[in-house]
């Protein structure tokens, strides 16, 4: 078992980032870099991460990093992986670097899904991390395909009326060797999943829930707490998919096994400003019910059924 003490001390995410206080993306980068180490090439598509790294000529990221166009995550990774293969053929690389593509939910669920799907189908050897803050934060909190029903964004001023997509399931359908979800409230779980992904050949997809304080409207000091509540109420399920099998991990596993009780979704909704409006509206109860049903449906999809104690 890894412990906090056993994490590498080397910091590849340096001081000087221009992220907001309590930014989930920054913490996620820090943990991911600890897992992958310095022999990593980082690729970032347009998102908050393009901005929080700092601006020319400074960078808070101590890895070779290419910022890529919004829609190109999978394709940019494909080019780098092919380039590395060519360098290996030339005999110019002793140790092949890990290729990490880092994208937001907009860059993954929406504009980048085609390129990601292509790269996965081509069995491109890289890790794709989607940090999912359930909106386009960088451009000022517009809706994305990951925005849950009922959530306020600037382009769903009355609350979103459609469900979010289940992109991890879409990636599983590509038959890639590793798909996992993670949460910042369980950093060692995330760390271990990154370590595992590093050792597997092929396309690895890891998605991390990234509660964004200004976008979701909660105090920045509560980022970890909100992350934890998402898992405890089932709105965010922790699992891995490997060798054709789904395996719940950590707190979600304990919840599915009945060792801890699932908390009501409404507790999680109430700590965020973005659900305030819908909860106060006449449709509030219906939205709450639909989100509970969303949780059941997600569990059913992974587990086959929903245990009666949930």
């Amino acid at each position, binding site marked *: 078992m890894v412990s906090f003490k056993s994490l590498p001390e080397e910091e590849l995410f340096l001081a000087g980032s221009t992220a907001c206080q309590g930014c989930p993306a920054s913490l996620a980068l820090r943990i991911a870099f600890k897992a992958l180490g*310095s*022999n*990593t*090439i980082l*690729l970032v598509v347009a998102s908050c991460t*393009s*901005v929080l*790294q*700092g*601006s*020319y*000529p400074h*960078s808070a*990221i*101590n*890895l*070779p*990093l*290419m*910022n*890529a*166009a919004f*829609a*190109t995550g*999978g*394709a*940019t*990774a*494909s*080019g*780098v992986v*092919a*380039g*590395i*293969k*060519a*360098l290996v*053929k030339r005999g110019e690389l002793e140790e092949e*670097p890990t290729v990490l593509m880092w994208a937001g939910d907009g860059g993954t669920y929406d504009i980048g899904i*085609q*390129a990601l*799907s*292509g790269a996965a*189908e*081509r069995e491109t050897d890289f890790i794709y991390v989607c940090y999912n803050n359930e909106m386009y934060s960088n451009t000022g909190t517009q809706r994305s395909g990951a925005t849950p029903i009922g959530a306020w964004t600037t382009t769903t001023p009355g609350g979103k009326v459609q469900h979010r997509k289940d992109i991890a399931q879409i990636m599983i359908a590509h038959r890639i060797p590793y798909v996992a979800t993670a949460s910042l409230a369980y950093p060692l779980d995330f760390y271990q999943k990154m370590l595992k992904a590093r050792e597997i050949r092929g396309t690895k997809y890891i998605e991390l829930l990234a509660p964004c304080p200004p976008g979701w409207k909660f105090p920045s000091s509560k980022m970890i707490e909100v992350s934890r509540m998402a898992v405890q109420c089932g709105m965010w399920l922790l699992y891995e998919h490997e060798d054709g099998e789904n395996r719940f991990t950590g707190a979600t596993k304990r919840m599915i096994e009945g060792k801890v009780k699932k908390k009501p979704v409404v507790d999680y909704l109430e700590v965020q400003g973005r659900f305030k409006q819908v909860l106060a509206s006449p449709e509030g109860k219906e939205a709450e019910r639909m989100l509970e049903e969303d949780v059941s449906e997600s569990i059913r999809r992974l587990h086959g059924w929903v245990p009666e104690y949930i």
Partner: protein
Amino acid sequence: MRVLETGNHFVALAVRSAGVEVVPAYPITPQTQVIEKIADLIAEGEMEAEYIPVESEHSACAALISASLTGVRAFSATASHGLVYMHEMLHYAAGIRVPVVMANINRALGPGWNIWCDHQDAISQRDTGWLQVFVSSHQEIVDTVIQAFLVTENRDVLLPMMVNLDAFVLSHTYMDAEVPSPEEVKRYLPPYRPRWRLDTRLPVTHGSVVYPVDFSETRESMKEGQENAREIIREAAKGYEEMFGRWHGDLVEEYRVEDARHLILAMGSAAAECRVAVDSLREEGHSVGLLRVRFFRPFPVEEIRRLCQDRDDLLVMDRNYSYGLSGALYSEVKGVLYGRTNIPVRNLIMGLGGRDVTHQLIERMAVKAWKGELDDITWADSHSTKSHEITKEMLGRFEEMLD
């Protein structure tokens, strides 16, 4: 090695000789033979490269850029809708300064789906920062593709380069041409040594946020890359001529211009038809010469100014149209001549969507122009067709139905 091949296959053979290491590509008529040939060469072990069968042209260009940033030589090919689908990434490639080469098989843009030749695709990428060359023979395809790498990889250029060849007229016709072997080309074009790259030994951030305080200089340096290319194109061609005995290094190619009173200016394979027109007009006693623009970017500013001094007039043929203004070559030419000479310049729009460019029509139009019988801009080969009559009839029926 002298071989009989299609223009498209010559692109592929030149790419192999140039030692290209990564080829991301997506098929589109009339480019498909280029990438099929490359895939074949790789499958047969005759070419050592990674072929990436991407799922779109946007991705093809994205992978082209990122592969190049790892420090390897990369190439792609496209046409028409594929090229314009890449538009965002064309800007990206130039902005991030990767010396990649791409063949574009010039084809019309739909709707009015049309797979045949015109230059609308390339013209509409004018301001992306790419060097753009238009070739007019099979041999020139081979020689230009090879030289393109030496030009773009030059540290004083470091901008991507688009090699344009006309759909079908060049892409699908068979001709014989000389293809230098990979070993021979190695002596001309050394292995790619990047000026920087994604390298874990020196972790650097590429393509980050640049504030107004630094931005303009990045663009000015792209401008300088284009300006430097003028001379570097000639140098690369000189070296090539010394080694292989063939010259393709002018931004503008001249044909019988020395004593010419009248000039015709064209680009791409239609220039070959213009040569025939020049010859037969000369036989009839007209004093006329041809300027074939090879490089659309960098644009041959000084050359055109010099060559248009003390002439009676200039007729510019465009296989494209910049809507709301004129043909694109025409407006560029007028722009560079403004204030330098008051030579009358007229514009012929012809050969759109693969319509045949005939020397007879060029001759007729030229004589009319010289007699002062042409407007500034003439759609030279437009005429009413049977299909237009059918359309009119359908429009009439819509009017009845919708009124």
